[in-house]
C-alpha cells in the first residue's frame, strides 16, 4: 500500500488582507498552516517583501545600496527605483525625518512626498512613522486622507494612540491599520480587541507584534510569534488571526554588526555584507516564525529572501 502522508491543517485561519489596488495588489495571510507547511495544506499567498524607503535615505551609507539608488533625489525617485527591485512586492515609506526631536519635517512636506510617491508607483504602499505619538497621529491621518482609494497600510496604531490612528486611518479613510505592540502576546491581543471595539473590521488589521535584530533579544520575538500563530491556528482565536508584518530593516541596520566600520572592527569583514547578512537572517527568522510580510532595505537581502520564499513554497 502506498504511503499517504497525513496532513494536519488547523481549524483556525489567518485573515487574508489585501493591500494596494489593481494588478500590483497583494494579499497577505489566508493560510491555515504553520509557516511554509505546504505539505499540510496549500499556502495560497506566499509571504511578501516590502522595500523600505526612508526620507533620510540620502544618509544611507552602503556602496551597493547607494549604487542601486544612484541618481535618485526625491522620495518618488527612490520609490520608482525600488519598484524595480527584484523580489519587491510592496513599498514602505518611512518618515523618519518628521520626528520633532530630529529634523522635524512638517506634516505637509511628508504628505506631499507620499502623494508624489503614490502618483509615481503602482505597488501597494505601507506608511511608517517617526515614533513620536503626537506627530505620527497627524501624519498618519493626513497621509491616509491624501492617499484615499490606494488601500495603504499605516503601520503604527499603538495602545497610546490606537483610538485616533484607528479612527482616522481605518474608519474615516478606509485604509488598513497596523496594530503595534512590544513582544507580548497578551498586549497584542488586547490591542486587536480594542481596535475591533472601535468597530474596525478585523480584516482591515495587520499586526506588528514587535521585532528585534537577531542576537538582540530575538528569542522574545520568536516565542511571541510562535505563540501568536499557534493561538490563531490551533485555538482559532479570532483576536489573533490578523496577518503579521515585521519591519526588519529598521532594526538590523542600526545594530553594531551593521554600523561598525571596517576600521573599527577589521576582523568582522565588509560592513555592507554584514548588514545584508543581519537583514537576511532576521527576515528569515521572522518568516519561519510566522510573519506574513517583512520590510527590508538592501537589494541583495531582498533577493536572498525572495529565493528563500520561492524554494519553500
Amino acid at each position, binding site marked *: 500500500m502506498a504511503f499517504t502522508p497525513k496532513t494536519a491543517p488547523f481549524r483556525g485561519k489567518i485573515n487574508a488582507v489585501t493591500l494596494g489596488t489593481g494588478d500590483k495588489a497583494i494579499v497577505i495571510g489566508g493560510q491555515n498552516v504553520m509557516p511554509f507547511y505546504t505539505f499540510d495544506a496549500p499556502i495560497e499567498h506566499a509571504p511578501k517583501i516590502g522595500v523600505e524607503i526612508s526620507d533620510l535615505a540620502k544618509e544611507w551609507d552602503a556602496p551597493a545600496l547607494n549604487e542601486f539608488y544612484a541618481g535618485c533625489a526625491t522620495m518618488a525617485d527612490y520609490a520608482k527605483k525600488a519598484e524595480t527591485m527584484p523580489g519587491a512586492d510592496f513599498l514602505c515609506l518611512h518618515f523618519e525625518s518628521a520626528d520633532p526631536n530630529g529634523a522635524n519635517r512638517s506634516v505637509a512636506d511628508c504628505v506631499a512626498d507620499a502623494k508624489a510617491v503614490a502618483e509615481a508607483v503602482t505597488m501597494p504602499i505601507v506608511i511608517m512613522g517617526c515614533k513620536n505619538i503626537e506627530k505620527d497621529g497627524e501624519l498618519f491621518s493626513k497621509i491616509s486622507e491624501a492617499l484615499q482609494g490606494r488601500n495603504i497600510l499605516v503601520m503604527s496604531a499603538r*495602545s497610546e494612540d490606537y*483610538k485616533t490612528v484607528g479612527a482616522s486611518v481605518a474608519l474615516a479613510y478606509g485604509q488598513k491599520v497596523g496594530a503595534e505592540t512590544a513582544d*507580548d*502576546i*497578551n*498586549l497584542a*491581543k*488586547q490591542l486587536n*480587541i*480594542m481596535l475591533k*471595539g472601535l468597530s474596525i473590521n478585523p480584516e482591515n488589521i495587520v499586526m506588528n507584534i514587535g521585532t528585534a535584530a537577531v542576537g538582540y533579544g530575538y528569542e522574545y520575538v520568536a516565542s511571541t510569534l510562535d505563540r501568536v500563530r499557534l493561538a490563531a491556528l490551533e485555538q482559532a482565536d479570532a483576536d489573533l488571526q490578523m496577518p503579521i508584518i515585521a519591519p526588519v530593516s529598521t532594526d538590523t541596520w542600526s545594530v553594531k554588526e551593521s554600523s561598525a566600520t571596517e576600521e573599527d572592527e577589521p576582523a568582522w569583514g565588509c560592513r555592507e555584507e554584514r548588514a545584508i547578512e543581519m537583514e537576511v537572517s532576521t527576515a528569515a527568522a521572522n518568516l519561519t516564525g510566522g510573519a506574513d510580510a517583512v520590510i527590508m532595505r538592501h537589494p541583495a537581502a531582498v533577493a536572498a529572501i525572495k529565493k528563500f520564499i520561492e524554494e519553500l513554497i
Partner: protein
Amino acid sequence: MKVTFQIEGGNPVTIECNAGDNLLELARRSNVAIDAPCSGNGSCGKCRVRLLEGELESLPSRHITDEEYAAGWRLACCSKVRSDCAVFVPDIASAYQSRMKTADLSSPQELAIFEDCQDHLRESGIHFVNRFRAVTVSMTPPSLDDTMPDSERLSRALEEALGVERVEIPFCVMVKLAHVLRQHDFVVCVKGELRSGVFHCMEIRGPEDRTMAGCAIDIGTTTVTMVLTDLTSGKLLAKGSCGNGQIRYGADVINRIIEQGRPGGRKKLQDAIIKETLTPILVNLCRHAGIHAGDILRLSVGANTTMNHLFVGVDAASVRMEPYIPSFFHWDGLLAGDLKLPANPLARILIAPNIGSYVGGDITAGTLASGIWDKDEMSLFIDLGTNGEIVFGNRDFLMSCACSAGPAFEGGDISCGMRATDGAVEACVIDKQTMEPTLTVIGDPDQRVVGICGSGIIDMISELFRCGIINAKGLFVREGKRILRDEHGMGRYVVAWAQESETGREVSLNEVDIDNFIRAKGAIFSAIDTLLHAVDMTVDMIDKVYVAGGIGSGINMENAVNIGMFPDVEPAKFHYIGNSSLTGAYAMVVSDDAAAKTAEVAANMTYLELSTYPGYMDSFVAACFLPHTDARLFPHSRQE
C-alpha cells in the same frame, strides 16, 4: 523654632524643631497622625496640610493645584520648616486610626460569620478545650503546730485537687503568695496550665476570681483587631480594633521593612505596634471586660510574616531580599513578658506559623478558620489586603502563594482613594443612559462623599465597564457631563462634584487610577490562575471560594467577577468569611486542638514563589484587561 499642628477636631500640638526639618517627620515625632501611605516620598499626595502662618519650603507637587497652593495647602512630606509656623491638619488624616471600619465582629453579620466558622471547626473535630485550669483550693492556715511553708502548702493542695504529681510555682506567683494567701484566709483560686502531669501556676487570686482569659490578635498591615475570650467557656469578653500605628511609617510591608532598617527603626516600629497600638486596646478591653491583665493566660497572633517580625522586634530585612528567607516560620516559647504586653508575663504568645516571606500566619490561621483543610471539595481561599494571598486545595493538599496587589484595595495609589472610613463610597450603581451614579456612602445618612474605598472602586469600575463608559483597558470611550478630561487628554469620571463633597474638592476616578486598580485585580487573578496551573487544574474545578479580609466585607462578588478579579464561578460558590485571621487566632487561643492543627496545616502547605514562577508575568499581563485578555475565562462578564 516651633511648629504647631492645629488638628481638626482636636487639641493643637506644638513641637520644638530646627530649620530644615521635614514636616512629616516632625508630625511623626509628635504623634500627630498624618496619613502617609507612600512613606513620605511624595507620590501618594495623601499628607495634605494647610499652612496657616509662618514659612515652609515646599516642593511643588502634581497633587496640589495652583489655587490650593495659594490657599496654603502643602504636602507634609515635601515641606521643610523655615520659621515658626502653624499648620492645619485635616481630620480625614486622623480618621483612619479611630474610625477604621474593619471586620472586628462589631456587627451581628460579622458575629454570625464568626460563629459559623467555629461550628464548622467543631464539625471537623476541633474540640474547643484547653489545659488551662482555675482551681479553688482551701488550705488549713499554718500554725505553730503546722509549720509547712506557703509554697509547699499550696503545692500539696493543688496536687490533691488536680491529681498531678508536681506543681510549679513561678516567680510572679511566689512574690505575692504570702500576701494573697493571708488576705483570703488560705482559700484561693490558682490559675495555670496542665502540661505533662505538671501544673504550672500562673496567677493566684481570691476564690471568687476564677476568670481565665485568652486574647486573639489579628495584626494586619493596615488594621489591628483583637478579642478577649474566656478560656473556659470560649465566650467573647470584649473586642476592639484600630489602625496599625505603624501606618505612619508606610502603607505597605515593603516601606515598613525599609523603615525598620534605618537606625533605631526596629524599635520605632515595634513600639508603634506594641506600645501605641496593642497595649491601649488591650488595656481598654480588660477594663471593659472587668478583668486583670494578669488573667490573660494565653495570646495568639495571626499576622503576615513582616508584621510578625516587627511585632517581636526581629530584623525583617531578609523578607524583602532575594532569596526571601525570613528569620522564623514557626516559633514556640515567646512569652507576653518578653514583649512587655499587658498580660500575664508567663502567658505564651502563639504565633500562627508563617509559610513563606509573603504568606504569613494570618493565612495559616485563616486557612484553619476556613476549614478547607478538612473538605473533599476543591476550595479557593483568598485573603484580600495590601498583599493578596491565595490558598487552594482540599484535605489532601494545600498550595499557597502571595501577590502584591498594592494598596489599591485600601485606597492607596488611587487619587480619590481612601480606606473604608466615614465618607467613603463603598458601593455604586451607574445608570447606563444618563451615566449618573447612585452611591452608598459609609457613615451617617447625611454623610458627604470624601473618597472611594476598595469595594466602591470595584463597583465603580465594573459599572463603568458595563455601561460602556470605559473600554477593556480602562480608558474612557463615552462622553458626557460627568466625563471630563485634563489638558493632557486624560479622562476622569466625576463621582461627586466639588460642591457635593465633604472636602470641597471634586471626587473623581481617572484613567491612571483605573489602570492602577486593573493592575491590582490583575495581580489577584493571575495569582489564582498561576496557582491553578501549577497543580494542573482549571477554574471549573473550584467548588468553593472563600473570600476573607476586612477589606472584603463590602465586595460585590458579581462585580468582582465582572471585572475579572475573581474567577468566573457561580455566585453561590462564593462565601465571605470575614476576618479569618482573627477567627483562626481565636480558635488557637481557646482550643489546643486548633493550635496543633494550625501548625500541622502550616507544615503541610506548599508555598509557590510567584516571582520565580515562569508563567506568572505572562498571566499577569493577560489579566490586566477587563475582564481578561482571554474573554472565554469570563463568560458572565457583561458589557452592555
